[in-house]
């Protein structure tokens, strides 16, 4: 009976253990503007509240802006945070099955890369 119980428990635990955590290309990385674990949980709140302040009041919080996220976390290979399956935003959001609309309007690339392409 005990054996059966443990094997059942093992069966239930296996899929959770076997499902691989997403591997992401964190770009430049380094020290984040906030604690990394806190950011995993709360980055969406920063972006959502920040956007109204920026658009409506002109309060541009450069540190917590989407642009600043991308500045650090866009891949060093293609300057993008959304271009590939393992790009910074894409890999987690795909894993969690959360669709983001940000990049239908916002650029997922570094400003420097955009400037290079659109030089006079």
């Amino acid at each position: 009976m005990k054996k059966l119980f443990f094997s059942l428990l093992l069966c239930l635990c296996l899929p959770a253990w076997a499902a691989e955590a997403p591997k992401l290309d964190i770009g430049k990385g380094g020290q984040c503007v906030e604690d990394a674990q806190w950011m995993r949980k709360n980055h969406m709140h920063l972006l959502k509240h920040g956007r109204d302040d920026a658009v409506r009041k002109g309060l541009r919080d450069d540190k917590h802006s989407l642009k600043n996220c991308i500045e650090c976390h866009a891949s060093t290979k293609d300057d993008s945070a959304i271009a590939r399956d393992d790009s910074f935003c894409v890999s987690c959001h795909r894993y969690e099955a959360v669709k983001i609309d940000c990049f239908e309007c916002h650029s997922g690339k570094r400003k420097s890369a955009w400037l290079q392409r659109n030089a006079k």
Partner: protein
Amino acid sequence: MNEIDIQRRGFLKTTLGAAAVAVAPGMLLFQVAHGKSEGVSSKVRWGMLIDTTQCKEGCNDCVTACNRENGLSGETKATDSQWIRKIEIKDVSNGRELSLPMMCQHCEHPPCVDVCPTAASFKRADGIVLVDKHRCIGCRYCMMACPYKARSFVHEPLTDQNPDVPRGKGTVESCTLCVHRIDQGLKPACSEACPNKAIVFGDLNDANSEIAQKLRSVASTQVRAELGLNTGIRYQGL
């Protein structure tokens, strides 16, 4: 008034005073801790004065600069966005011809803001009329309401936008007076690009600014002034 009333009045006064003294520094500290100012101020009103006598026919530099700055395609089909366009006008009675740039006039009383059902179209405190694309549902009422035909609708999915100028399908857009540049202390791209310095940009409320001084000394017109919208863009020599 009896003595109890007077005592009560005195008591209330001291209590309220003490409460104010206790709360005020806390409020102040809260603001300091959050590091937020009030944002843009209504003491400023951004505007432009366009000297049509200096605007050359056939010159398109302001339009090109706008397109490059804001990532517009530069095409002029019915479904393409145009934030600024050059128009040629002719007085048929005497044949006088003029060329001038036309764009969002950044009205003090913008009709586009009045009609917007989602409050996406709004006027920032410093007088810049903008679309909050997080709220815009693409109904295009504002395009109907605008007397200057200044707004465009994005029909196709876009890629490779300027990171400072988010634009996307299903929303209405127009001249932002290069708000992202203004917030960095720069001039709008069109004003900077004009080879004849025909577009003067500045604060209409600041009596010492170049634009306010020029407005004091030369005759200027608002396009369709009869609508009483008090536009932020003024024209000289119209």
